[in-house]
Structures are given as structure tokens and as C-alpha cells.
């Protein structure tokens, strides 16, 4: 079953076409990775799908419904979540409060007039926050300010925030960028476990080929804003256009 269908997605910044007539479908439960050299338009694509940027043309269907150009909070409320490349967290809130913000978005919708409701004793929210933190191995650090966490933990908190709403589809934008090999290993294991336990379709935007080939069923390759290949890891590895795009990238 197709969970996300993108047709003709295009984004132009002035004369530059960052994403060029991109079509892509994502099946429920599959492990798709989107790869490509720097500047290929991977992050722009995610930004277009999740509502951070407005597409110049094209259509995005999520669960068969049109979400093109919808606001980010609407898209999340429908069950599509994302993480960011940099640890986009709330640095001066505690780890627990970080998760609580995410849990509030999940529990009471995009807006609620509950400004006189006690947060203490709002059990559904506390429970949801606790579960994510436990899943991500951050529960012990819940009382620390988020900014005091080591880099790898910050990135995990970032992922935790994206997961708290129990999305159907989750985009992870380079979740292991800048991590040490150990942290990378932990994170990849976590991603695989979360996928099993939470029944969430995860799309990985990655640079690290080793990870991509290890955990993907299918890989889409972008270059200069266009999709140049789409297939199983074996197919992609043998694809001459992909090799050319990547080798070209390295030579530059």
C-alpha cells in the first residue's frame, strides 16, 4: 500500500531548480533511503514534503490525501513526522520537558484552550513522553537541561521528538551526521528497533553509504534535483549513472 506519493515535485529558487520534476512513491513498511551527493536536493525534498517550503509545482499525497503546501503542524497531525539534520531541540528545557512539548502536540491536537489545566497529573502526556524517552534510552537523563547532553544524545533526543507522536511515516534527515562510529552504531540499532516496535515507515536521508546499504530495501538516488535511479541496493550499486554522479561529485 502506498503511504506517500509524490508527483512532479519542483522547487525553483530564482534561476536555480533545487528539485526538478521529482516523482517518488513510498510503500507502507518498506525501508527507503534517499541518497545523493551534496546539493542534490535531498533536504529540500523533505522540506517540501513536510511543509517547511512551498513547492513551485507538483503534488504530494499522504494516505491518498493531498497535503501539498499544507502547514507543518497539519502535516504532523496527519501522521507524517520528521527529524532535522541539526539537533533541533529546546536547549534550556529539560529533556523531559522537550518530550512533553512533543507529547502535547500528539495528545491534544494543534491547539487547545487548556491554559488553566494542570500539566502535572496530565497522565496521557506524561506517559507518552516517558515512553519515547525510555525507547531512546534518555529516560535517566530526563531532568538534565537538553543543552547539557552530549552530541549523540542530543541527536537521539531530536529523533525522540519526531517519534513521540507515533507517526505513520517518519523522515530522518541524516540522523548519524557528525557522530562517532560508536554513536552511529547505537543510533542505527535504535532506528531498526523503533521500526519494528512502532510500526512506522522510516525514510532515511543519508550520506553514509554503509548504513544505507545495510538497512534499506530500496534506494532512491537524487542528483541535481532529479531522481536518477530508484531500486534495490544491488541494483543501485551496479548502476553506472549513480557511479558517475558520485564519482563526479568526488572529483569536483
Amino acid at each position, binding site marked *: 500500500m502506498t503511504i506517500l506519493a509524490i508527483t512532479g515535485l519542483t522547487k525553483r529558487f530564482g534561476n536555480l531548480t533545487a528539485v526538478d520534476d521529482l516523482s517518488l512513491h513510498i510503500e507502507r513498511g518498506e525501508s527507503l533511503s534517499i541518497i545523493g551527493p551534496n546539493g542534490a536536493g535531498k533536504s529540500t525534498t523533505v522540506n517540501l514534503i*513536510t511543509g*517547511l517550503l512551498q513547492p513551485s509545482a507538483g503534488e504530494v499525497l499522504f494516505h491518498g490525501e493531498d497535503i501539498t503546501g499544507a*502547514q*507543518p*503542524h497539519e502535516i*504532523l*497531525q496527519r501522521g507524517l*513526522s*520528521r527529524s*532535522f539534520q541539526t539537533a*533541533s*531541540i*529546546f*536547549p*534550556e*528545557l529539560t529533556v523531559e*520537558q*522537550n518530550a*512533553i*512539548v*512533543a507529547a*502535547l*502536540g*500528539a495528545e*491534544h*491536537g*494543534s*491547539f*487547545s*484552550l*487548556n*491554559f*488553566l*489545566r*494542570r*500539566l*502535572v497529573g*496530565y497522565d496521557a*502526556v506524561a506517559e507518552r513522553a516517558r515512553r519515547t524517552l525510555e525507547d531512546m534510552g534518555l529516560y535517566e537523563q530526563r531532568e538534565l537541561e537538553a543543552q547539557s547532553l552530549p552530541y549523540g544524545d542530543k541527536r537521539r533526543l531530536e529523533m525522540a*521528538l*519526531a517519534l*513521540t*507522536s507515533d507517526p505513520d511515516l517518519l523522515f530522518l534527515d541524516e540522523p548519524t551526521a557528525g557522530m562517532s562510529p560508536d554513536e552511529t552504531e547505537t543510533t542505527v540499532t535504535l532506528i531498526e528497533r523503533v521500526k519494528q516496535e512502532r510500526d512506522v515507515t522510516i525514510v532515511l536521508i543519508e550520506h553514509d553509504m554503509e548504513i544505507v546499504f545495510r538497512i534499506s530495501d530500496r534506494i532512491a538516488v537524487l542528483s541535481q534535483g532529479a531522481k536518477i535511479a530508484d531500486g534495490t541496493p544491488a541494483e543501485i550499486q551496479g548502476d553506472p549513472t549513480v557511479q558517475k554522479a558520485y564519482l563526479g561529485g568526488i572529483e569536483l
Partner: protein
Amino acid sequence: MSGEAEASTGQSRGEADDLVARWDALRRREAFPAIAAIAFVIVFPLIFTNLPAYNGYMSLVELIYIWAIFAIGFNLLLGYTGLLSFGHAAFWGAGAYAAGLFSVAVSGDPLVMVLVAAVTAVVLAMFLGVLSLRRGGIYFAILTLAFGQMMYYIALGPLGAITGGEDGFTGVTVDPLFGVLEMGAEFAGVLGVLLHDVGYVVFASFFVLAVAAAVRIVRSPYGTIFQAIAENEQRVEFLGLHVWRYKLAAFVLSAAFAGVAAGLHTVHARYVAIASLYWITSGDIVIMTVLGGTSSVFGPILGALAFLYVENIVSGEIAFWLLILGVLFVTVVWLFPSGLWGVVSAVRTAVRRRLLEGRS
């Protein structure tokens, strides 16, 4: 050190730990801030009106509560949500005029006047909020400033016939509370020493209510969402929360506090000055809030107190009181970026450390 001395140190440390733990538990109780505020309104006038030099007077105490309500609400927007409005005079002034006009046209019941002022401020804030919150940061500050000044000129010119223009609105009539209790009716005996008159009880009650309401808001989902918006607005949006609506909510809530305070001010002064809509009023509330400290509900109260003390008492003795205020502001903000309340917090932390270290 002898064994005996060690034992006694250990014991005193145990007691101190216990004391600190109990104090922490007490402070976390929801009712604590309200009870502290009640204690404050009973004790504060006794101290304030009997200071050795430069002592205050009852009317100023009431004025401090009124401005503190305004500042507490303003801080929900500035300190918690991270939005600097430079146009809150619009809500203060509109609320004050609405209460004044209502007292003449319909009813001079003090509570109804306050209600009318609050509703006016809230409705206006919904309108101005929708217009101003389209942009963030400095644009928001300038838009609110512009709308505030617009209100000022409208009250001065086109609506001059109703507002009294440059002379202000003078016809305010305040009826007795519930139709029977004159605002100036003094209490007898101990009650008189502690609570003075009906007016004082009204102003002090609203102050306590404002503290309790602000604490409740800060401890509701809104409190955490506001702080999250201040830190990383985009992330909040991507967690499924409608950031714009929460900002509007913070704006409207702060205006509600401003409206209540403005209504009380009209009841207190029985006059509305055109200056209540002027940008300097917007600036005053920013200064009070920042001076007191933006990181808690209580900071702005201290800020209002210090500001009004310098403005009303020190100014009587020293002609260049504005300079004193400026120096105070710069010193506090420079040495204690978290304001006067930051000084209190620092002292509290130091005392706690002393207690926990025991006598060793």
C-alpha cells in the same frame, strides 16, 4: 575533629537537608504562590509605609499592585513566549477608557468596570494580534508600536469628543462595591491596620488573583509550550502545534491582564490620562518587566515596585529621578541579567548552599 563534633555536624546537616527538602516541597505546591501573595499584601504596606526614610503611602501600594498585574501579564508574552510587544499601552489605554466611559454611561460598579476593561483589551488584542503576529522579532515590536501609536492619535483626535482629548477623561464615577461598600470605607481595629479600606482589599485581591492565574497558566500546557516557542519556534510547529495560535493566545492573555490592571487603574485614579495610550507607557511596562526579571512570575512584581518607588518617592527628593531609574536599570541588567528577581534567586541559592554544607 573529635567524634562528638563530627556527630553534631552530621546532625545539623541532616536537619538542614530536611529543612531545604521541606521548603522545596512547599514551594512546588500549587497554592504556595497565592498564599505568599496574600502574606505579601498584608505585610508589605506595613513595611512600605513605615520605612525610616523615603517611606511610601497607601495609594502608592495600590498603584504598585495594579502595575504589577500589568507586568505579570506582559511577562507571559515577553519572558515566557519571547515576544517583545512595544504597544501594550494600546490595551492599557483602551481598557482604562472603556472602564471610564462605562462608569458614566452604564454602571460605576468597580468589578463591572474591571470586567469591561478586560473584555475591551481582549477583543482589541485579538484584532491587533492577528495583524501584528504575521511577523516576528523586531517587525513584531515595530508593528505593535505603530498600532499603539495609532490608538493614541485616534483617542486624541477623531475620538477627542468622547475621550476628552488632551485633557484626558475626567468624568469617572465609581459606585460602591456591590452597591453598598464605599471604596474608601475604612475598617476598624486590627482589620483597619492590616487591610485599611475596601479599596485596598479590592486591589490586593486582584493582585493575588493575578499571581494565582499567572502561576496556573505557567504550570499548564501553555507554560511549557510558550517557553518552547521562545527557544525554537520552528520545532514546535513540526511537533504538530499551531505556533501562530499559541502566540496569539499569549498576546491575548497578556492583554487580559493589562485590561484588568487598566480597569483597576481607572477605579483607583478616577481619571484616564491620554498618556495611558502613549508609547512611553509601552516602554514603562517593558522596563518594569525586564528590571524585575523575565524568568519567573514574580520578577515583574519586583520590577513594578522598584519602578514606581523611584518614580513616586525618589522623584520627590531628587529632581533627576529618571537618571536614577536609568542607572538602576543599567546596573541591574548589567550585573544581574535575570533582573531583581535574579538577585533574590542568587541569595536563595547561596543560603541553600550554606545550609547544605552545614557548619563544617
